[in-house]
């Protein structure tokens, strides 16, 4: 089976300072990968390289078996960026308008069909915010807003969902619900890559872990990560507690 994401010996530097060095990893279809590492360890850079937002200095990147530079099937990737990178906070836009964007890569310059609208509405149902469809995105709580962005990814019928610290500024209860939603999406076959600073959440939810600090310290299933020394090696010995209920 072709890997959803296939990185081979990828390096990327901002000027002279290397952000990631010689990272190789494959993500298979249906995996839930938690990407962890200390602040400034290159997690976001690695995710951007995977998605083709950044071009690596060396190494090869493939998405769904295709070289990332020529990859055209934008609808197959759902991306939820850090809150600060979109205009949800200031722009007058409804939740429904936002979720329908997921259909835009499907229709190009054409009109949205009734089917497209239906798919968007179903995505709103799936994440449980159908009743908020006509609300302005900036009137939502942090957790609801991230659900809207997930709904956009579902509406695009993405096979790969990439999330960059989606729950920063979201209260604990909404966060739990959000991760339960991710799990159920993963169960339905969507591949997930999640950057998360809370290692406990990652070890609870993800089935695979990649731990990086410029270099890849560990990549494997959660079980093997918990038993390895990768955490203390990557973070230095901070003595953080790892939850593990498997």
């Amino acid at each position, binding site marked *: 089976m072709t890997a959803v994401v296939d990185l081979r010996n990828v390096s990327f530097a901002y000027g002279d300072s290397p952000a990631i060095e010689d990272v190789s990893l494959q993500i298979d279809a249906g995996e839930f990968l938690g990407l962890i590492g200390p602040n400034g360890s290159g997690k976001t850079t690695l995710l951007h390289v995977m998605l083709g937002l950044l071009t690596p200095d060396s190494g090869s990147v493939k998405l769904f078996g295709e070289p990332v530079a020529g990859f055209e099937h934008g609808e197959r990737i759902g991306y939820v960026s850090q809150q600060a990178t979109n205009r949800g906070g200031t722009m007058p836009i409804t939740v429904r308008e936002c979720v329908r964007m997921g259909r835009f890569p499907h229709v190009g310059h054409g009109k949205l069909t009734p089917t497209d609208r239906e798919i968007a509405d179903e995505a709103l149902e799936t994440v449980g915010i159908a009743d908020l469809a006509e609300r302005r995105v900036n009137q939502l709580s942090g957790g*609801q807003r991230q659900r809207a962005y997930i709904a956009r990814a579902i509406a695009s019928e993405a096979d790969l969902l990439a999330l960059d610290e989606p729950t920063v500024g979201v209260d604990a209860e909404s966060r739990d*619900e959000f991760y339960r939603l991710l799990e159920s999406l993963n169960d339905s076959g969507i591949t997930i890559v999640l950057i998360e600073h809370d290692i406990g959440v990652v070890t609870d939810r993800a089935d695979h872990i990649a731990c990086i600090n410029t270099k890849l310290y560990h990549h494997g299933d959660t079980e093997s990560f918990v038993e390895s020394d990768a955490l203390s090696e990557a973070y230095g010995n901070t003595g953080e507690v790892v939850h593990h209920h498997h």
Partner: protein
Amino acid sequence: MSRNEQGAVDQEPVGTDSVRNRILSAGPRRTIELSGIGVVGVLAAVMIAFIGLDWLRHGPASGAHPLVESLYATTGIDRAAAAVFGQFLIGGQWIDYYLGTNVFRHSFMWRSIATGVLVGIVAPLVGTFLVHRQMALIGETLAHTAFAGVAVGLLFIGVTGWNGSLLFVALIVSVLGALAVQWLTERTNTFGDVPIAIMLTGSFALGTLLISWGRDVMTVSIDIEGFLFGSLAVVTASGARMMSVLSVVVVALVAITYKQLLFITFDEQAARVARLNVRGYNTLLVVMTAVVVVGAMQVLGVILVAGMLVIPVAAASQVAQSFRETLYLSVLVGQCSILGGFAFAISQGLPSGGSIILVAILFYLVAIAVSGRSGAALSMH
């Protein structure tokens, strides 16, 4: 949904929602907006028709080819246009008669009004995307680039004796300026304001030098003040014609690329992941801005033109619920500002540019008062 989230919903938006609901519920509100847009559309169509008649009545390009010659001879389309045009001005005389004015009987006034009506549509239309991409300063910069374009055009016409439109030269220079701005911003990573500010002042400096120098070496009379502050008298037949063509093109382009522009406006990074040609649409947006600015410069003036890109959008964003509604309301506020500003300028014998902008700001203040939202959420850059 968790209790916690429910709480957040209940608390936060109550103030704004109840205010909005008091004004109008969604159904009639939408109907009123769409009717307003319909009226604006009809008005624009009439104005474009007027500009077309103004063009046709002189039998354009009749010397160019015998075929055109015979077309005029057999159809009599130029004479028909002249007749309808005459009727239009007679209608204007009646309006003057009832209002006790001396305005609507003159074809040059109608050209200005027509240009203004079109500006009132396309400037807020493009401005909606600019403002929410936090690129409002770019509109200001392109206006100053267009001023340099006017100066270059003056010199070009003075030196070569070319019998073309000054605005056309300004349009080309402004589009080149837009591409330069795009190039600059791509290299500064963000729409950082320092290179943009340098470009803004630099092109204006170049314009003033070229005009002073041009005055010394040749005898071209030009109403520079008209271009700086906007004037009803500065709109020429060819300027109005250019504006009508540009307006149709810009409205069509926005209609075709609405979804893509919306996506890159909302989340440029996600749009890139979705494999939209973000760079292409950015360039399109900046070039459309340049084009709109050159057209709008005639009635608003270089210094005030950016106001028309920003203020109606700021007003609309206060009260609108959705992005589409923001677009509609921006155009409506823009149109009302243009017509209100014209009325004030004509009745008081004052420049049109300042009048239009002050009326627009009045709408903005009303929008803030009505919505109860703070105006601080929007930013220039």
